[in-house]
């Protein structure tokens, strides 16, 4: 693929990106969210049409891919993170569905073919077994087998390992190596660094829709990879921080919230955590490292499995969000659309929601009071909306985020958790939010701030909890708060 360009209204998702995959190679495609990985894959598989650029295929020269069918005919197959097979059908049916040679299916033949292929690829499944009875890993493999059987030359694996355990990942890697030996080129998209170094030959890094570079795996140490993904060269990582430090008056305050060996059903390892009055701290790590899961456990958003939680030194039970709210904890969730906004309701209802729930079922605010609350925060946070009656879904992303922020500020929490508050919103709003965080902290609020952008974190946080692969692997504060140190902690090992 050469010089690929793709724009969406308002965004240039891909700018002049080159990508090269050789026969019998496992090639990692890396980048943080919004870097353009999925757009590139969708262009390659014909889901999106590119604006400009060329795609060449071995022996065929330049090819035109306008639809997923085109891509399939050329031997480009994709296996997605979520299984896209039919769980009610058998393994064999799933492998051959939609591509029978005649309208009459020869079941015997089909099952025999399937068994042969499963054996060849060493997949522990039986042709006549119902797919939903297989483990997720095996389902994943069946999807791969289906792709392989369609004479695929290029296999794209999009986050195949995120729902697998370690043994299952090993099995999958075994299969990938087998396919590599057969000459299939594999594009591997993942967030797990260890897995990249275990199985890949080459890495291509994207950032903000641009190509950062293509590297041999042996030439690129982990720290370098993290630096490239986050967009900071090791060398110029001097102390960007500085200004953040002046708000750092946290050492004197009492501990507001404390967690010991907290664990939830979202798959994170038990962790310890605490925050003091007026402190701003954060969880850092790559996407999928368990940052959000930690704060969700604190807020009671996921089912808490074990551990102790103390607020102002007193042990409390937080089993559901309302418990956390009653203890003065507020949480702005990572996924604004799914967990944040209540789309069809007005800006006003969205703002008063949390405080209203806290106040009680039988004590609804009067219209005038709700109006006053909404107007106060619309003005305070400079929310751009036609009126407080406007449905929140018709606002821009940044303004939606401000409404959700207003919702939690209205509650006057002691401890505010912000999970990716700046994602997907314009630069102006980003700066507003960062300023607001520091202002709130100076007024004595404790804030946990999570962001994929490390400089944001460095600018605002005085202490960072570092996570890798769903585990807390370190804590940085004071002099250690540098890009270098963060990245080496994230990368681990070396």
């Amino acid at each position, binding site marked *: 693929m050469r010089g690929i360009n793709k724009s969406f209204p308002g965004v240039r998702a891909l700018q002049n990106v080159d990508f090269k995959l050789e026969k019998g190679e496992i090639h990692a495609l890396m980048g943080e969210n919004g870097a353009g990985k999925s757009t590139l894959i969708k262009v390659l598989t014909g889901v999106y049409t590119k604006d400009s650029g060329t795609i060449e295929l071995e022996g065929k020269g330049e090819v035109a891919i306008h639809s997923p069918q085109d891509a399939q005919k050329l031997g480009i197959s994709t296996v997605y993170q979520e299984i896209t097979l039919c769980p009610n059908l058998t393994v064999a049916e799933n492998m051959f569905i939609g591509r029978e040679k005649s309208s009459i299916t020869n079941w015997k033949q089909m099952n025999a073919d399937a068994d042969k292929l499963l054996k060849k690829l060493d997949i522990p499944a039986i042709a006549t077994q119902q797919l939903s009875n297989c483990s997720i890993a095996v389902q994943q493999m069946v999807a791969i087998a289906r792709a392989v059987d369609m004479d695929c030359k290029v296999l794209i694996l999009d986050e195949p390992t995120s729902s697998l355990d370690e043994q299952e990942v090993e099995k999958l890697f075994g299969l990938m190596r087998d396919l590599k030996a057969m000459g299939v080129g594999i594009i591997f998209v993942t967030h797990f660094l260890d897995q990249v170094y275990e199985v890949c030959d080459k890495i291509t890094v994207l950032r903000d829709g641009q190509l950062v570079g293509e590297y041999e795996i042996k030439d690129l140490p982990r720290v370098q990879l993290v630096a490239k993904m986050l967009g900071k060269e090791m060398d110029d990582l001097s102390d960007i921080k500085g200004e953040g430090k002046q708000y750092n008056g946290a050492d004197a305050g009492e501990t507001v919230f404390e967690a010991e060996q907290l664990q939830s059903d979202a798959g994170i390892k038990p962790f310890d955590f605490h925050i003091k009055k007026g402190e701003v701290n954060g969880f850092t790590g790559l996407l999928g490292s368990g940052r959000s899961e930690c704060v969700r456990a604190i*807020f009671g*958003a996921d089912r808490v499995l074990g551990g102790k939680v103390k607020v102002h030194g007193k042990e409390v039970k937080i089993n*559901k*969000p*309302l418990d956390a*709210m009653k203890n003065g904890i507020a*949480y702005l*969730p990572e996924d604004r659309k*799914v*967990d*944040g*906004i*209540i*789309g*069809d*309701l007005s800006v006003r*209802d969205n703002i008063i*929601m*949390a405080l*209203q*729930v*806290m106040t*009680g*079922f*039988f*004590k*609804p605010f009067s219209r005038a009071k709700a109006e006053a609350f909404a107007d106060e925060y619309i003005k305070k946070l400079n929310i751009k909306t036609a009126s407080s009656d406007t449905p929140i879904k018709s606002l821009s992303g940044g303004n939606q985020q401000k409404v959700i922020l207003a*919702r939690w500020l209205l509650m006057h929490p002691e401890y505010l958790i912000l999970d990716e508050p700046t994602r997907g919103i314009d630069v102006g709003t980003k700066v507003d939010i960062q300023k607001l965080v520091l202002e709130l902290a100076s007024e004595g609020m404790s804030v946990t701030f999570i962001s994929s952008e490390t400089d944001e974190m460095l600018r605002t946080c005085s202490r960072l909890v570092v996570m890798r692969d769903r585990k807390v692997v370190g804590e940085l504060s004071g002099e250690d708060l540098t890009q270098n140190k963060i990245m080496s902690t994230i990368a681990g090992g070396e």
Partner: protein
Amino acid sequence: MSKFKKITSNQLFIPLMALILLAVINLINDPGFFKVTLGTNNAGYPVLSGYLITILDYGSELGILAIGMTLVTAASGGQDISVGATIAIAGSAMLRVLCGGNSRPETIQAPIIVAFLVACVVGMLCGAFNGALVALFKIQPMIATLILFTAGRSIAAWINNNELPIVPDPKFSYFGGFIPGIPIPTTVFIVAICIVIIALVLKFTNLGLYTQAVGINESSSRLNGINPTLIKFISFVILGLCVAVAALIKVSRLSTINYSVIAKDIEMDAILAVALGGNALSGGKFNMWSSILGAYVIQFLTTTLYKFNVQSDALAAYKAVVVILLVVFSAPTVRDYMGQLMKKMSLARKEAA
């Protein structure tokens, strides 16, 4: 243009338009359609009669059910199809208490209020059963309520040992008829009481806000401290209560019950009322008054069809046409198209001027 949009985007627009359309059709056909006369009934008391009174009277059960159905729809994004069968259950329980298991008692065996309260409990239990399946076990509402839809009428028959008891006390017939001396059907007062109660509930509690929040975005509601399971459950229990009130009226109309035909197909009318009120059947935002108005529009339609001598087994077909029109006109593509059409027309008018 903007004025047009403002009017059409109001939720009451669809049911009001339908109401006006029906009224005009009837008026053209029979100018005396809206005449209300004061006569006396066979007990010698003054009563009002006329098509309008008939619509208000017979639309009562539907209006009451629309209240509960609106809440269930908003919270769960699905509908309860068991209301007809649960009316049979609640009504049967009421008769069992009134007649004490004897199909032809000389006097009633318990005060009417006790029988009604028992029916309320039974109705709410049925609602709780449906609500538990939907909220706790996450079964689709239509599938979950299919259970009582299937078994309900047999349960109703079982409650009274397959007997068809007749209530001997004429006072019992007041609820579905007239109270001596008052010329307005009692059902109108019952509906009015229900409307006042639900209006007070919506004003003095957060039921409306929570229900809508849960229906629009369950996950987000949970993170705001709302318990979506409880809200869905409550909505079904409230519908159960509405069912009990509707059962009181239904059973009172004839002072007896027929398990296999009482309130037959009423669930479809109740769902249609919610849809006709412009509420999304997929849940979320709702307008209670619009649903109730929708219920009376349906009764208006039914009464009109009877008047035009349409065979009553063909009524369903006409209602199906209404559903089709509703679906078509609420489809976003059609709305966009209509909007553009209006724009073009107003442009053309400007050019002409």
